């Protein structure tokens, strides 16, 4: 199974993503330069962290107009799994593929830390095998990771169970002290209504090996692989029946 890792000028977590993907049996990651226009050969798409186009104007504001983003949008509409981590999350929000926006951390500081995030749903294609309420320990490293959504959007996110991860303390409580950047309702990661696009500020790519302090991030890539296998098995069966 092949995952695309998009490289924008200024991406700097592309190698981390490739390493995390290649660390899972049955998965292979491949770089795709942002000037490419097709992602047909890939089963899933990863938008990595970094500072695409220097993050000038706003984080992700210029990257969303890269040629590859049309393929990302059309493949996402067709149901392909898309994961955006950190800067990748910012690009997805700027592109309108995820609701809300990411603004300057409330502290005005760049935060670099290991945090606990609590899983808020148990039916996400990105978190198979992790029960609702379980904690994922993931690193964060960002200056503009404060998630903002207006009241109406926030209500929709909650009503449609689109909030996948919230920053929590080590006991799994959602408290202000556990919020590293001022995100509304401690939101660390959300999906679209169709549930096939997932953006999060933490870095699963940097937590894919116990030697890095946590292997919880690998669960996300593994879950994506399981989802895709299950979906293709289902469509194969459907073909046979037909």
């Amino acid at each position, binding site marked *: 199974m092949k995952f695309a890792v998009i490289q924008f000028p200024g991406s700097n977590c592309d190698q981390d993503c490739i390493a995390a993907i290649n660390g899972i049996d049955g998965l292979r990651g491949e770089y795709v330069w942002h000037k490419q226009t097709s992602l047909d050969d890939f089963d899933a798409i990863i938008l990595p962290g970094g500072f695409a186009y220097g993050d000038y*104007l706003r984080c992700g504001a210029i990257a969303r107009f890269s040629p590859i983003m049309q393929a990302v949008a059309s493949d996402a509409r067709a149901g392909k799994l898309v994961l955006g981590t950190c800067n990748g999350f910012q690009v997805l929000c*700027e592109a309108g593929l995820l*609701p809300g926006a990411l603004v300057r951390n409330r502290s*005005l500081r760049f935060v670099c830390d290991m945090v606990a995030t609590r899983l808020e749903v148990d039916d996400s294609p990105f978190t198979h095998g992790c029960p609702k309420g379980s904690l994922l320990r993931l690193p964060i490293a960002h200056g503009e990771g404060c998630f903002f959504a*207006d009241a109406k*959007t926030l209500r929709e996110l909650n009503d449609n169970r689109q909030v996948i991860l919230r920053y929590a303390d080590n006991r799994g409580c959602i408290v202000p002290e556990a919020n590293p950047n001022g995100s509304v309702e401690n939101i660390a990661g959300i999906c679209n209504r169709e549930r096939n696009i997932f953006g999060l500020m933490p870095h699963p790519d940097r937590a894919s090996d116990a030697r890095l302090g946590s292997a919880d991030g690998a669960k996300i890539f593994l879950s994506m692989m399981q989802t895709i296998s299950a979906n293709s098995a289902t469509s194969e069966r459907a073909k046979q029946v037909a």
Partner: protein
Amino acid sequence: MKVKVVVMPKAAVLDPQGNAVRDAMRHLGMPEVRSVRIGKYMEIEVDGENGELESRLHALCRDLLSNPVIEDYELQNAGVPPGSGVADRGQKSEVRGRRAEGGGQR
């Protein structure tokens, strides 16, 4: 023509930069400062001058220069750039700003 674009964070969006500057101003002897909001100001020179150009500029203000989820923009047509000789003959800056449509998902 030369246009000026001012992009400001929406009222509902936290502006920690503005708050930090407000606090600094108070510390520097101006306790009267109630609030500071920090936005962006852009000067853009464009070849040509007509309504069609301006509507395209508005489209780019919404798509690129501002993010309507968190920001409002104002586009001001400042007329012909200074130094071209035309502006000096009394052509006044004209404000034709328009607020971006509010909120929601793009």
